[in-house]
């Protein structure tokens, strides 16, 4: 019970901190002070108080995008073990629910973009759904490989504990590398997309929410942060599937690990430029092949 409450508290409260950590890391690389660590929270507080303008002619779908964008990753987080602690919910096949919840959020975000009737946002929606179709198999090949290693059909079982690294180290390295790419792609990070430019440079995810403002945009930002947090936790559990003996130490290790992943993303964003758009599919297909090889290594 306490574990579930801590799990909930972490997933509700921690995500905006991650964006702050990434921004600080990038600022450090650029020799700037950067925004305060808690800037994400300040932004949310400000946006929630603001009024907003809805595009003329838009419908309920325009607001369904932000709503689904928050609700889906929140539920998905409940299926995921955080660090050494069991997930609050677990059943055979929960990784399918996990993946399809993100698909649901994607559909409504893209639909909300099309609801504005803007060509620019429609283009972003088209790219989003096309690129994620290439990222999806990378995730699934990884799931299949993890299911094979652990013999379990739920996320808690797959990500449960560490012996996988002893018996199946090579496949896990491949899956982890592939999922690192998925983590960056799905969260619109450099090299796929630049989350800091809401205008011309940002051609995929952020362009879809150009017309959202005020509380709705607050939900968009919060949902994106929760998604980043959840996928980071998934990635973290693959590369660091170990449990401490003390449950409190486990929680500490988990929070530290997620923040480390955020710093890692910040480093990647600092040392790389955004890829040309035509290169993005190549990188995603490459990630797919990595995890497919990982799966093949296990087929004996």
């Amino acid at each position: 019970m306490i574990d579930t409450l801590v799990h909930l508290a972490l997933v509700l409260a921690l995500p905006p901190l991650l964006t702050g950590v990434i921004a600080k890391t990038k600022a450090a690389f650029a020799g700037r002070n950067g925004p305060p660590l808690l800037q994400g929270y300040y932004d949310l507080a400000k946006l929630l108080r603001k009024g907003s303008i809805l595009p003329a002619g838009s419908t309920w779908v325009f607001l369904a995008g932000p709503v689904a964008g928050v609700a889906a990753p929140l539920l998905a987080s409940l299926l995921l073990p955080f660090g050494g602690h069991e997930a609050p919910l677990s059943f055979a096949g929960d990784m399918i629910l996990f993946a399809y919840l993100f698909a649901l959020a994607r559909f409504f975000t893209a639909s909300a973009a099309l609801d504005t009737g803007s060509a620019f946002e429609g283009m972003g929606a088209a790219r989003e759904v096309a690129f994620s179709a290439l990222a999806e198999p990378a995730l699934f090949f990884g799931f299949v490989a993890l299911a094979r290693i652990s013999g379990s059909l739920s996320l808690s079982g797959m990500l449960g504990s560490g012996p996988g690294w002893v018996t199946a180290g090579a496949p896990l390295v491949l899956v982890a590398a592939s999922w690192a790419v998925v983590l960056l792609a799905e969260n619109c990070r450099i090299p796929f997309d630049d989350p800091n430019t809401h205008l011309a440079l940002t051609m995929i995810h952020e362009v879809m929410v150009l017309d959202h403002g005020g509380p709705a945009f607050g939900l968009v930002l919060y949902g994106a942060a929760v998604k980043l947090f959840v996928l980071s936790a998934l990635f973290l559990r693959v590369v660091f599937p170990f449990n401490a003996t003390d449950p409190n130490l486990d929680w500490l290790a988990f929070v530290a690990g997620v923040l480390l992943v955020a710093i890692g993303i910040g480093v990647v964003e600092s040392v790389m430029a955004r890829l040309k758009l035509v290169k993005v599919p190549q990188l995603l297909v490459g990630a797919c092949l990595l995890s497919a090889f990982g799966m093949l290594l296990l087929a004996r």
Partner: protein
Amino acid sequence: MEAASPDGLLLAGAIALVALSGLPGLLARKGGSGGERLSALLVGAGALLGLAASARVLFLGGGFRVELPSPLPGGPLLLSADALSALFLVPVFLVPALGAVYGLGYWPEAEHRRDARKLRFFYGLLAAAMAVVLLARSGVLFLVAWEVMALAAFFAATTEDRQPSVREAGWIYLVATHAGTLGLFGMTALLARTTGGFAWEAPDGGLAVTASSSVVFLLAVVGFGGKAGLFPFHFWLPGAHGGAPSHVSAVMSGVMLKVGLYGLLRVVSLYGAPPAWWGGLLLLLGAGSALFGAALAAGQGDLKRLLAYSSVENVGIVTTGIGLALLGRSEGRPEWVALGLGGALLHVLYHSLFKTLLFLGAGAVIHAAGTREVDRLGGLLRKMPRTGAAFAAGCAAALAFPPLAGFFSELVVYVGLFRAFAGPDSSLLAAFAAPALAVAGAVALAAFTKLFGVVFLGSPRSEEAAHAHEPGRAMLGPILVLGALVAVAGLLSPLLAPGVDAAIRAWVAPAVPPGSVGELAHPVPPLAAIVPLGTIALLGVAFLGLLALVAGLLALRLRRASFDRGATWDCGYARPTGRMQYTGSSFGDWIAGRLTPSAAAPVLEVRPPVGSFPRGAAVSAPAPARDPLLLRLLEPFASRWARRFHDLHALQEGRLTIYLVYVLGTLVALLAWSALRGWVLPR
């Protein structure tokens, strides 16, 4: 299982009512509304009887078996209903009933005096023939009912036979269905040689697998797979489903494809221990159909053709499940059977619901806006809010979003595929099928985002779309009923699971009667024991609650903080117009172009910009009447052979007497052969 069981009587009544539903209308006054109402009433009454019988067989363990004496060669006519038949009977009765009510508004006698009566007659006949196909257990009766079904579908689909594109699609369908039927004739004959009769009933332990069994299986895959629209036998499907009146499209896409899948299931169920490559082939065909069906759907510019290709995808998902179940049967893995077939059967039910909803919704759009080109529509959600909301639910169910209908069935298939690779004796093919289905799902997401987003959202792209309106009660009613069904059907999966279990047992039973020692000696576990459907349904309700909570908080905040309406900002366009919006062609082209084999890729018309001040550059996907695969591969092949056989045209006199002479001559030749055979060929 006795002859005079109430199930048999209920089903006989249901089939008679549905089959004859169009008949009174033929006699009624032309243009009057009495005939059409009576026919809808008859279909509805028949459907109620049929659904009651199906529910009895599925959940109360009913069933029947009768032998009717027959003057035809091939033994008595054998009819029987087990849980497998009953499960497929549910869409066979439910969809035509809703479609018949919809037809009152969509194809009213008053507006279609020329063809409405013909349509209703063949519509009823089609539904009744499908029901007979599902009950037939003797090869002869099966083939007769199959042919009636195929022909009734041809006449119903070519209702608008004054349009050249509809005629052409009709001919292609007719040729394709008869090519498939030819395969089924061969299959039936071969099967009769092994069993010594035309009864499709397996002896204890199932039929033994011989060399000819594999030919039977391959013929079944071609014949039944062609009817089901499996890639690459799907080429007839988009034209026929797209050109038919929308409620006929719904019956063809939502139900008739499943009858093909049923045939495949029934025939393979006769074999006790099928070789592993049978299941492997189906896994491959299924995953391929899912992937290419979705990619082709994303590339379509025509509302109904997009939905038709999405049916290819869904048939692929079902076939993947069937392949896994067959593999489980070969390898003696009951849980693969339960998950593969369980997911497949659930998907058969759910796909029939959401695809019918989508076709009826598309019909409402065509009715209201007068065009089926995605790129001429837009902004319809404001004009037809209720149809639009139901359509959105249909799209979400088709995309398997939790907790709607499609999610539960796809989840079960996925768990089966994962399970087949996770444990010992794993199947690598299954391991590849899961990511393949995931890509298919993600590409289908692109297709349906395009469909819903471009048609219903944004602003109108044409004058017609700007003046669309909500349809009348007869059309809106079935759409809303289906919308509600699609929303709750998934949550009801735990209640449906016992019926699905019964159907799985019926599929396994002929080969392995209780008590015998076969490959699957240990019983197939109930579906709910492997996948906790109840928990997932509760979780789904919780998710809906969470969505409502977030939406409520947002609404509260918006009201407090004040909101206004203004022009779409779009990075500073002062006056965006409908024509500046992103088009459906641009939306789907990229992904469709990359994921389809080049022979099957959609035909695109590209007019690149020319010069420094280009005018009129465009990319569009025109709606060809023919599938690209047909256009690029089959037609050149067929016309080459047609040229070679050109001289045989001399035989085609076109006079009935000459043909009768041919028949007589053939008969005499055959009689002579059978008389002389013993003499010519020494034993």
